[in-house]
């Protein structure tokens, strides 16, 4: 049973659920208590010990159904449904010896006995799906199928499993049958059986790959996505990216949520001190100081969505969207040649749609930073004060228009911090129509930002310095 449990943990990891060692031990003890007999009971018991949040529970339920679905070996001709999953024994737990008694093959002249019970050919020709399933499960365990990682390994494992099931014998039989020319019908039968075996095993391996193979490959893929330049990332990875950004955001939120109070040395909290020091007869051994709640940063985020940064814009907006979920007060704006408030769109729509909507509505060509800065001056400046952090995402390519760097100076003077994230590498700043060199002096932080790693570092800094300098 232990092996089955371990396989199940692997499958859970494949579904992105963390299973700690502690939980594994609990699960093992729980199953020892409730037994394997009753499916729903087992499910509740494993659920209570392995899953720690409500969203994970839904994923767990799915994985459970998938995992404890008995993989049957389809019989020829197809159509016969497999064993009903209602009273499913966990896969691969049947003792191998059972295979011997069941199913009588129409043993031909070449039918030789395999070491593990009946010859594969007999089982195949008889269509004994129960025995075949068991043998397939056993073979899968013998070759360690749960370690499968990549789809490229499919062929390897299919071959291995077939061999463990007794493919060599089957092949020998086929060769022999060919030699005996009087039995062409049998050759055809055996060859059909062999083909059927291949198909079934391959399907089986594919199902297992989708269960076990996702976790390690996804880790690799995530790692790749985090370090890749944002412009090189495919659109189909967008959902995955959002997951990662959310994860980063959650981690940062947890880390920073705690630093909310700060002591003000110099101001005694008289009441608390008196109360606590009653213990010492009123002698003030312990002192308490007044504390202030450190405000969460108030962020005004402004994002360029023009043609020149089109590839980045999607991810910058994604980042903004996640920031919106994380930081209490975020106002989000997007622009190409004039400023548009997109906070409402973000609040109303799910991320993918929101980003698409903004790209459509605001995107275009012909960025005009000068105009946008004037817009900021008119519409936003009065709302920017010592509490506000201004975050600008853009490449500062102004199409040779008026730069209006003096507005940046005013902004720099009013806001707590101005952060400019530029997708271009620093060496490109100021080349061609880039005004970055003129804006950069009026930013507290101006840096290159074109991968998720960059984003994470900046977000971390944003939250940290905000609470420290409050």
């Amino acid at each position, binding site marked *: 049973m232990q092996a089955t449990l371990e396989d199940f943990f692997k499958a859970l990891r494949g579904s992105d659920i963390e299973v700690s060692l502690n939980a594994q031990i*609990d699960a093992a003890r729980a199953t020892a208590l409730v037994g394997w007999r009753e499916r729903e009971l087992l499910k509740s018991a494993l659920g209570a010990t392995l*899953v720690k949040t409500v969203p994970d529970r839904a994923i767990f339920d799915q994985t459970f159904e998938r995992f404890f679905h008995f993989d049957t070996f389809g019989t020829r001709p197809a159509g016969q449904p497999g064993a009903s999953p209602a009273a499913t024994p966990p896969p691969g737990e049947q003792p191998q010896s059972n295979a011997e008694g069941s199913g009588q093959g129409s043993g031909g002249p070449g039918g030789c006995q395999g070491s593990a019970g009946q010859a594969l050919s007999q089982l195949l020709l008889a269509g004994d799906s129960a025995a075949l399933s068991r043998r397939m499960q056993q073979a899968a365990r013998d070759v360690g199928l749960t370690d499968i990682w990549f789809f490229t390994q499919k062929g390897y494992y299919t071959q291995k499993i077939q061999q463990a099931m007794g493919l060599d014998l089957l092949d020998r039989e086929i060769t022999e049958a060919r030699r005996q020319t009087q039995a062409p019908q049998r050759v055809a039968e055996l060859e059909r059986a062999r083909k059927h075996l291949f198909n079934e095993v391959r399907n089986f391996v594919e199902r297992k790959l989708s269960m076990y193979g996702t976790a390690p490959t996804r880790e690799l893929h995530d790692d790749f996505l985090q370090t890749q330049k944002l412009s090189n990332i495919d659109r189909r990875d967008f959902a995955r990216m959002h997951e990662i950004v959310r994860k980063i955001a959650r981690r940062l939120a947890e880390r920073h949520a705690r630093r909310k109070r700060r002591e003000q040395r110099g101001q005694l909290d008289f009441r608390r001190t008196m109360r606590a020091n*009653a213990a010492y007869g009123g002698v003030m051994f312990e002192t308490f100081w007044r504390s202030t709640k450190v405000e969460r940063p108030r962020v005004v985020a402004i994002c360029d969505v023009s043609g020149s940064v089109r590839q980045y814009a999607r991810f910058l907006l994604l980042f903004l969207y996640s920031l919106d979920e994380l930081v209490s007060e975020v106002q989000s704006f997007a622009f190409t040649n004039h400023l548009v408030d997109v906070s409402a769109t973000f609040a109303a729509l799910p991320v993918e749609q929101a980003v698409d909507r903004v790209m459509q509505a605001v995107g275009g060509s012909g960025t005009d930073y000068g105009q946008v800065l004037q817009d900021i001056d008119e519409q936003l400046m009065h709302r920017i004060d010592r509490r506000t952090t201004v975050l600008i995402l853009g490449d500062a390519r102004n199409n040779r228009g008026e730069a209006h760097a003096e507005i940046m100076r005013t902004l720099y003077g009013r806001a707590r911090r101005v952060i400019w994230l530029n997708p271009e590498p620093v060496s490109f700043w100021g080349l061609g129509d880039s005004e970055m060199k003129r804006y950069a002096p009026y930013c507290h932080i101006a840096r290159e930002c074109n991968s998720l790693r960059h984003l994470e570092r900046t977000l971390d800094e944003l939250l940290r310095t905000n609470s420290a300098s409050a």
Partner: protein
Amino acid sequence: MKSLHDSHFDTVDVVSSRLADVDYICTRELATAVYLAFNLEKPILVEGPAGVGKTELAKSMATILDVPLIRLQCYEGLDESKALYEWKYGKQLLYTQLLKDKLAEMMQGAVGLAASIERLHGHDDLFFSEHFLEPRPLYQALHQERGCVLLIDEIDKSDPEFEAFLLEVLSDFQVSVPEIGTIVAKVKPLVFLTSNNTREMSDALKRRCLHLHIPFPEAKVERTILERRVPGLSQTLNRELVAFVQAVRAIDLKKQPSVSETIDWAKTLLLLNAEHLSLDLVRSTLNVFLKFEQDIASATEQLPALLAQARKDAELPLSSHHASHA
């Protein structure tokens, strides 16, 4: 005297039937989690919307096991001096005053400071012993001779620091008091932690607990709960009422009515001698189970439709249809 672990639950069904005996109707899922918590001696973290019976579950378990229920209500700013122990400062001061003479007596003959201190050291640390300790809920829970059910209510309201402090209690059923040493539970208590999910609990805490989520009950379960909790309610009214509440939960509300509110409403209708749900009746008693002005407004708007829906659902003999509304 019977202690906590003299009781036995051989199977999950025993748990649910014993709970039903004390009028706590539950799903098999819930019974399984409690069964495991009891037998594995692990704390259990219960989540779910307000009023689905999280706290009630701990109370019922205490009744079944016939042990005291010790409750620690969490709030922002809760610290160990309120949760675990505090020194009885007043008593300590009083005793020092009273014992001053004795002290002088004791010191007679000691020459010099060093000798006096030496003599004092000969005595135990009297003032920081258990006599001067004010036990708080956690301390009490560990000290129960017969074990107890410890309910740590609304853990999500406490600070992260307090959550970290709880870890020792939850994993080893022991706490360390600097002046005394480590206190180990005489009988491991059955621990329930409840959370309304106002914030995410730390991984360390979750790792030490089993997890149970109690959702709003299905119509069938809710009807049974009403039968038990509000005896005297007619079958028809029970059906209509539950169907109506289930329908209300499906609309978009700020706070959905929970089981405790269904019970309150049922009691109200019983007092009013109602036989059937009528439009006027519902409209005038809506505030019993909807607690926000805007919720009442939006429910009133859809009242005829909701009522029609409820009547239709109540007539269906099978519960399968109700389940889909849950």
